[in-house]
Structure formats: C-alpha cells, structure tokens
C-alpha cells in the first residue's frame, strides 16, 4: 500500500505545525520521519493515521482518498511511544483486542495470538499483565497488538523513545529484520538521526513544519541539502564568515565557494566541517590548511577524538582520526599541528538557507 500526502497543512492555534507538506511513501518501504521536536513529524504521522485531521490537503492510501476516513476504518497498526497497552487486560487479551472488536472467532484468535507471541519472543507470557513486563517487552507487545489484524500500514510514533540504550539497539535491529520478513509499508517518527539511518530505507528530514530533504540514508548523509540538515545530522564543526574574493574565509583557511550554493560576494555564510573529514599533519599543506594547537586527545572510542584550537585559541575544531593514523602522529596536548579539511560544506547563513530551501 503506497501512502501519498498531498499539500497537507495543520495549525494548532497560531502555531503552524505542518506547512503544505507533500510526500510519497512507496509500497513496502520502511520510512523514517526525522526531525527535532516541534518539526511537525509526529503531527504528520498522526494525520496519516487519522488521529488528527489536516486543515488542508489530502491523504491517499493507494488510489483511495482516506482524508475523511476514521482511524478505525483505515486498517492501520499504530504504535505509541509510551506503549498505550490496556493495563487491565492480560498480554493475550491486549494482542487479541483488535481481533475481538473485529469479530474474529475464538478458534481463530487463539492461534493468531500465539503465533504473534512467538514472533515477539514472549511465549508463555500471555497470562501476565503489562505492568509485569519490562519496557522493551511492553513495546513488543504493543507491536504484536498492532500487527494482529494484519494491517496494510504500520505507523510508529517514537517507538524506541522511552527505552534505555541497550534495549533500544536490540529492538531497532529486531524491527528492521521483522520488516525484511513481512515487507509492510511502515513509517516511524524519530528525533535520533542514528536510529533513522540504521533502520530506515528512506529518510524524510523535517524542520518547522516542512520537509527539508528526503532520500536514502546514504544520499542524505553524503549530500545534505541545507544548513539545517547538515547541522542536524550529528556532530559537526560550525564556522561563520563572509564571502571574499569568491572564497569563504575560515580562519587562515580559504575554501572556494561552489556556485550551486548561490553565495554572492560579501554574503554571510555558514560552513560545516564534519570531524571525521579533517586530516591532521605535522607539515603544512598550503592555503587549504591552518595551524592549530591540540588541547585534548580522547582515545577511548572507535576513533580518536582530538580537540584543537586554531587562531590563538579563537577557533575551536573537533577532529576524529582513525587510531592507526593517530598512532603515527602521537599527538599530545599542547602540540602545534596543521589541520586540513577534506570536505567543507558552505551554505548562505542558516536562517536564509532555511527560507530558501522551501
């Protein structure tokens, strides 16, 4: 079932939660709506589910216009951040709920529920109550409950948000492999870019009620379309300045401004340099490199994190190096070295770029 969102807007009082959003979610794909809080991602999901009505625009499931269709008639499964399990019912009754209200026969319900319990690896727990389960187990029950009546579309609102890191990683992997098995069109909301990239086939980055960029995780990460997306996708060094002689000046560093970003002489710009896209050397590399002092070296992760200051301590830069590279350099706090970025992304000043991207 393909889902199409056509020109959807939604206001809450004076707040514009969604501003003329259009989006196609292809059949059988697992799509992440990614954005900070207040970006409208949850509102969009709730409108797709029919839990919220759009002020303008239409929602299609396949060819069918479901805009005025109530949630119960849309044939969806919805998973809430805080599970929303029925506390007075056993696990069995929770999973069977959707089947009972749809008037399934008891002899059909039992095998279906047991099958789902096997799927979520909670066999033998059917007589327990939700309060006797851990967070991860509850969310799996919520998933089984949503899957029970074989919906055509699965919608998940921050499904991992209330879980701790370890459980979250497990459940993430589990959901991905589940999707590879049943190939249901699925949309989930998250504010965690790592989560979106790891789980989704397709990522939709949202900001202030609009879509900033959509694409596969590889595309979005390699070619962020705007300053916002670059900034949002994880740790990055940010520099501000003005374009001079067709080049952006970052400290002693001169970066030629690519025409596609539309920067004009004298414009303010924001430049982003990802920590892992910077090299450190003890020798200078011409105008593409600048001198910096090492202030701290952290070797505890999968990469070595080096904090440096360029321009007499005026310009902080974070760099990540592979352990092997760092071992040959053998950096110590106080060392004077040369840094040269392999890739710099330059955008016109952030506020302007957000406006222009719409």
């Amino acid at each position, binding site marked *: 079932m393909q889902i199409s969102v056509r020109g959807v807007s939604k206001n809450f009082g004076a707040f514009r939660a969604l501003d003329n959003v259009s989006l196609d979610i292809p059949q059988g794909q697992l799509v992440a709506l990614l954005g900070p809080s207040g970006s409208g991602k949850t509102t969009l999901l709730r409108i797709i589910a029919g839990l919220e009505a759009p002020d303008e625009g239409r929602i299609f499931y396949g060819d069918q216009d479901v805009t005025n269709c109530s949630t119960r008639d849309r044939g969806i499964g919805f998973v*809430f951040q805080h599970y929303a399990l029925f506390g007075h019912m056993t696990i069995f009754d929770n999973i069977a709920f959707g089947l009972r209200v749809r008037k399934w026969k008891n002899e059909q319900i039992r095998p279906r529920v047991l099958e789902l319990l096997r799927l979520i690896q909670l066999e033998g727990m059917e007589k327990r109550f939700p309060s006797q389960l851990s967070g991860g187990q509850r969310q799996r029950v919520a998933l089984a409950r949503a899957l029970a009546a074989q919906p055509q579309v699965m919608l998940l609102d921050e499904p991992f948000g209330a879980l701790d890191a370890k459980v979250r990683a497990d459940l993430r992997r589990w959901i991905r492999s589940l999707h590879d098995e049943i190939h249901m069109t699925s949309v989930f909301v998250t504010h965690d870019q790592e989560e979106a990239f790891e789980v989704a086939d397709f990522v939709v980055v949202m900001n202030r009620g609009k879509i900033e960029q959509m694409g596969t995780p590889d595309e979005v990460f390699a070619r962020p379309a705007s300053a916002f997306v670059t900034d949002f996708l994880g740790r990055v060094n940010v520099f501000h300045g003005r374009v001079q002689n067709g080049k952006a000046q970052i400290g002693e560093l001169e970066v030629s401004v690519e025409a596609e970003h539309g920067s004009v002489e004298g414009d303010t710009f924001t430049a982003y340099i990802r920590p892992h896209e910077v090299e450190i050397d003890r020798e200078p590399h011409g105008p593409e490199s600048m001198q910096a002092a090492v202030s701290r070296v952290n070797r505890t992760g999968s990469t070595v994190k080096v904090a440096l200051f360029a321009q007499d301590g005026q310009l902080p830069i974070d760099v990540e190096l592979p352990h092997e590279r760092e071992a040959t350099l053998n950096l110590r706090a106080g060392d004077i070295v040369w840094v040269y970025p392999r890739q710099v992304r330059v955008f016109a000043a952030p506020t302007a770029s957000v406006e222009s991207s719409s």
Partner: protein
Amino acid sequence: MKRSHRVLPGFGLSLGITLLYLSILVLIPLSLLFWNAGGGGWEHFKSAAFSPRALASYKITFGASFVAATINLFAGMLIAWVLVRYRFPGRSFMDALVDLPFALPTAVGGIALTTAYAPNGFIGRQFAPDGIIGRHFGPEGLKLAYTPIGIVIALTFISLPFVVRTVQPVLGGLDAQLEEAASSLGANRFQTFRRVIFPYIWPALLTGWTLGFARALGEYGSVVFIAGNQPLKTEIVPLLIITRLEEYDYPGATALAVVMLTASFSLLLAINTLSRWTNRRASA
C-alpha cells in the same frame, strides 16, 4: 504483622491515634447502642424491630436508597464525563452546582424539592391529571411528592455528588492514547467505552455508588418534607426512630437503629471487599 522500614517513622503512634479517634467517635457510641437496645428485653426488641410498620420502613429505606444510588450511577457518570471531556461556557458553574446538595442544610433541600414536585408545584403540575405528562397516566395523573417516588427524588438529590466526584478524577487521569490505540485497532466508540474506559472507571463508579447509597440510607431532613410520612407506605427508618423517641420509647428506637446499623455495616463491608477485589484485578 510485619513492619517494613519506612522513610517516615511512627507507625505505632499514628495507629494509636487512629484507633483512639475511631473508638471515641464511632465504635464506643455505636456499641452503647447495642447495649441500650438490649435494655427492654428480647421480646420488646423483637416487637419493636420487626413489627409490620418497621419492616415496611426498612423496605422503603433500602429500596429507595438503592434506586436513588443506581440512578446517580448513570447520571453521575454522564455528568462527570461532560465536565471532564468538554469545555463550554458555564462549565465551572455546573461544576459548582454538583456540590450544592453537600452544602445545603438538608431541610432546605427538602423544602425546595417539595415546592417543585408537589401537585401544585412547577414540576409536579406537569404530572397532575391534566398536566403535559400526567395525562398519559390515567385519571389520577402521576403523583410525585408524598409517594415513594418523592422519597427517591429526595435521595437522588442528596446522593448526586458522590459518583460525580469519585469518577471525575479517574476519568480526567485516563490516558487519551488508550482510546486512540483502541480506535486504531478497529474498535468503535461503544467498544472503546465498554472494553477500555469502563474497566478503568468501574472501581470509582462502585465507590461512588456505595457512598451515595450509604448517605441515602441515613438521610432524614430532605425526605420528611416530600415523603408524606404515611406509616407502611412512605415512612423511612430515620423518621420512625424519631417517632419512637418522641414517644419516649428509647429501647424501641435503639432496636430499629441496631437493625439499620447491622444491615448498613454488612452491606458496606461486602461492597468494599468487592471493590478491593476488582481494584486488585485492574492494577495487577
């Protein structure tokens, strides 16, 4: 009894005060009642407590209280629902109106109800033989005041706040996502109410019903005006007790009181046990 370590000490002290308080206020006075009831001998107790007039008054008191509490079970749930779920002009006025039967001297309530429901009153007139509603009830019309219906009206009035006030906070604390979950799973409104909302508010409903019922059993002031107080027909137990006292028949009055007390206490104990059992099931 095993005592667990608590942040706030003083189990012994607080239990002591609780026992003393309940003894002085409730237990000792009510035990003396039993003592006094025995004062006239067993034969007198039996004739006072189980005379046809007394039996009729038990029936009308428990029956009318049961009906009144049950009416409020439904009406109170509806009012609580409206107050919690909707925002409309006059909502806080309506909210305050609910508590009014608590605050009024019951006699005021009784006089007000009688004025309205008497055959020549504003509401009673509609039920008279030539009234809008009364004409459908034959040549007699439907008499409200001075009949058991009048008693039910008065008891419904005074027991109104209980169900509303017990259900309101529970309904207000109900997670809206549970209803959304039910609807996403294909439940219609009725199924959502019956299978999801009702099980959550049921213990509060039961508590409210019990409180309202208990309050109605003991009600005197508002009933005597509207009841007509005919022996065997519209005489409630509290009134019969007062009548016996006015005749200086103290053993007779206490005999009636003992029967009321025993019946009320067993009923309340049974209902509380039932509600504890449903609570445990709901929170398990």
